[in-house]
């Protein structure tokens, strides 16, 4: 991989490693009296390890100059493997905390292993570790193929992949140390947030520059979505994390916003993280790998257009539905609710566009578990967007809010949609990336499919049940005007559902382990020379002048 960089690029990479080491060392020194010091040390150590790795290859020969006539897929390869490793790690932690809700004593008697610290490890691990790496990896792949251009940089993709994973590492280790900004899905503290801003700007610039090199007159739908994902996540991340550190040597910071403004900013962020990270990005994935695997044209270009603009415009307004029946002014809640209702139409148009693209390829859906993953993903996308709009209606929300129904809804989206589309995309992508004829084992894909589907269905059904039971118990009044149940009654009633949920989660985790094994074994198969049908090489003639 390092041999794919020129010596100049290797030298530049070393400079960056030194900068990372210095940054880490500075952070470690000023924060030596705080947990921040450990994170400084972690960054400095990472910088040094990377430096040594590059130094050991510094005198390797320069790469073949014909590299510009090929797509640059090494960062994607790393992204795919790392993404699957995050999946296995984070779903393991997820299932652990699921069991903790059944057997609260099933943990170590230590701060780091308490439920409150492990839960964000799970959420950050799956959303950013698994999902983020999957998006970065596939976006690089899709961008190059649909633009017929090589990535506009050899070093910057590595800054994105490695930097992003360092951010994830800072995040999850920080939670175990007890560092948190106390904002859901935005828990990392100020220094990690600033670090991510740098990485994300590099990603955005790289994406735009590659897109500018494209040899097709039009920009493909997948790239609209990936670009929306990168741009809006940058905006969300920066604004929601505006904060003042206690001191430069301290991990703790305080949000710039307070009270209900802080809550509104947080859920504007939170809901649009769902929209632009977990929806737009993965729709980009769907719009490339699904038609490609099915061998069918996209059902309707016009549907792509209204769905894209519908989703990007409407989601921005909908965040306040997370704060129904709170101190947030009534009108803000209602406004968010009305936009959430309209939102279901472009969401279903997207799901419909995907499903109708499968017309003419249904026999493949039946026979090919990879395509079936993507089919089920589109179905769950439709289900969870309908459910989301439904739950955004205030009276419905008065039953569902604060219950496990929300948890079930999130997992219908995360397991059924986000993870399933990623598995379908990876199983399509991996043989192409490593020039293999096929995946190592189609029976293992089949096994993964049924484990993932069974796990998701068990999970979602148990959470629907527990959520609605909770909601009904909490609001039940006796005729004398007193509550019919104590809170502990409702906790007690959850036990069977929590047990079922943990079993479902375990099945899903098992599927992930099988997926990682299958992908790993595929990379070790002998390569074939036959160029894949769709993979026309980049057009390079006009590259330097343009």
């Amino acid at each position: 991989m390092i041999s794919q960089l020129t010596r100049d690029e290797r030298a530049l990479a070393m400079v960056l490693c030194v900068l990372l080491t210095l940054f880490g060392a500075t952070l470690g020194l000023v924060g030596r009296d705080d947990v921040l010091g450990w994170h400084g040390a972690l960054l400095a150590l990472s910088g040094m390890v990377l430096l040594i790795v590059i130094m050991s290859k510094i005198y390797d020969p320069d790469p073949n100059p014909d590299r510009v006539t090929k797509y640059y897929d090494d960062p994607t390869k790393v992204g795919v493997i790392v993404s699957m490793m995050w999946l296995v790690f984070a779903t393991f932690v997820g299932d652990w905390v699921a069991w903790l809700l059944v057997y609260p004593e099933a943990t170590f008697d230590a701060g780091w292993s308490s439920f409150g610290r492990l839960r964000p490890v799970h959420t950050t691990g799956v959303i950013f570790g698994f999902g983020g790496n999957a998006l970065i990896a596939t976006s690089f792949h899709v961008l190059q193929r649909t633009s017929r251009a090589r990535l506009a940089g050899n070093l910057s993709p590595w800054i994105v992949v490695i930097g992003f994973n360092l951010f994830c590492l800072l995040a999850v280790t920080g939670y175990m140390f007890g560092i948190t900004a106390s904002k859901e899905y935005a828990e990392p503290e100020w220094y990690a947030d600033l670090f991510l801003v740098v990485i994300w700007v590099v990603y955005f610039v790289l994406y735009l520059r590659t897109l500018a090199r494209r040899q097709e007159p039009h920009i493909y739908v997948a790239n609209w979505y990936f670009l929306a994902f990168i741009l809006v996540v940058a905006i969300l991340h920066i604004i929601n994390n505006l904060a003042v550190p206690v001191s430069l040597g301290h991990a703790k910071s305080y949000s710039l916003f307070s009270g209900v403004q802080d809550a509104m900013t947080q859920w504007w962020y939170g809901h649009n993280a769902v929209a632009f990270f977990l929806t737009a990005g993965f729709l980009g994935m769907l719009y490339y790998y699904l038609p490609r695997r099915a061998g069918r044209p996209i059902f309707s270009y016009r549907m792509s257009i209204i769905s894209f603009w519908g989703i990007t415009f409407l989601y921005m307004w909908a965040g306040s539905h997370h704060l129904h029946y709170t101190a947030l002014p009534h009108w803000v809640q209602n406004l968010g609710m009305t936009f959430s209702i309209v939102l279901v139409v472009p969401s279903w148009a997207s799901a419909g566009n995907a499903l109708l693209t499968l017309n003419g390829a249904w026999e493949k859906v039946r026979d090919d578990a990879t395509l079936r993953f993507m089919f089920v993903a589109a179905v769950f996308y439709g289900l969870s967007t309908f459910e989301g709009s439904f739950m955004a209606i205030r009276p419905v929300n008065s039953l569902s809010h604060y219950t496990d129904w929300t948890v079930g809804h999130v997992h219908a989206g995360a397991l059924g949609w986000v993870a399933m589309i990623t598995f379908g995309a990876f199983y399509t992508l991996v043989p192409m990336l490593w020039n293999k004829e096929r995946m190592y084992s189609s029976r293992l894909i089949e096994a993964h499919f049924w484990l993932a589907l069974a796990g998701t269905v068990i999970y979602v059904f148990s959470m629907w049940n527990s959520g609605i039971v909770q909601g009904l118990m909490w609001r039940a009044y006796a005729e004398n005007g007193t509550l019919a149940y104590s809170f502990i009654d409702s906790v007690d009633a959850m036990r069977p559902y929590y047990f079922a949920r943990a079993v479902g989660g375990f099945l899903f985790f098992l599927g992930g382990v099988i997926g990682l094994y299958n992908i790993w074994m595929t990379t070790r198969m002998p390569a074939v020379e036959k160029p894949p049908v769709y993979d026309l090489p980049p057009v390079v003639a006009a590259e330097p002048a343009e």
Partner: protein
Amino acid sequence: MSKPERDPYTGLMTTGHEWNGIKELMTPIPGPVKFFLALTILSAVLLWILYPTWPYGPGYTKGVLGVDQRTLVENNLTKSAALRSVWEDRFTSAEMSALEADDDAMTFVRSHGARLFEDNCSACHGLDAAGGPGFPSLTDDQWLWGGDAETILETLRVGINAPHDETRYAEMLAFGDQGMLNSEERRTLTDYVISLSRPDELTKEQKELLPAGAELFDANCSSCHGEDGGGSHDVGAPNLTDDFWIYGGDAASIAATLRHGRIGVMPYWEDRLSEADLRLLSLYVRDLRPNQQ
């Protein structure tokens, strides 16, 4: 870029765009999409007219229905207050002893009191009210401050060592930490305290020191726990002659209590529960005592 072509399966034309093999059909927007888009937008507009939604500088549109979430909550609160007032009035006005003698009232106490107890008390005293290390059992009819309903009500109202002006105050002094008794004296005293409830556990050597222990007890402990160690409800000092222990009755626990002292806290509930709920909860706790008929 390729030319638009006819898709053999659907018979529809493609857009003519192509990205490395991926093409798109020029399918018109299906009718249902247009219909539901119109329907949802219309319902949104309708909701904007009916309910408060849009901000404009100094205010926001109030909506023709004039609904406001604060008024809605206030109405709901008023309604449930009306439902509750039926029994609340009775529980705040009647004498505790009268309520205790009233089967109807006590049936209600047993159902609603259980909810109140589970939501407010069970975190410390346990779901079965049997307590745990540091938290007294409420089911044994042994009380620090007295166990009739009125006294329990007072304990609930002001708490013990709580930040309430009239709180009950009690502290077991740290005889070791504050240098009042040396370790040998504390050992002798520990044995003496054990002898009050379980004399058989002591060895012969320990028994020989009991008179010395009695002297120490008399000088240091009897002012609160009483000359016979029977405790006192006036100062919240536990009875040392029975089998009920808050912090444990084994030698090690007693020694630790003697050395470091104890200052247990019970929160006060006056501001958190209504007068009716407090009285009901006292009756519920009173009702937990054993051998109830």
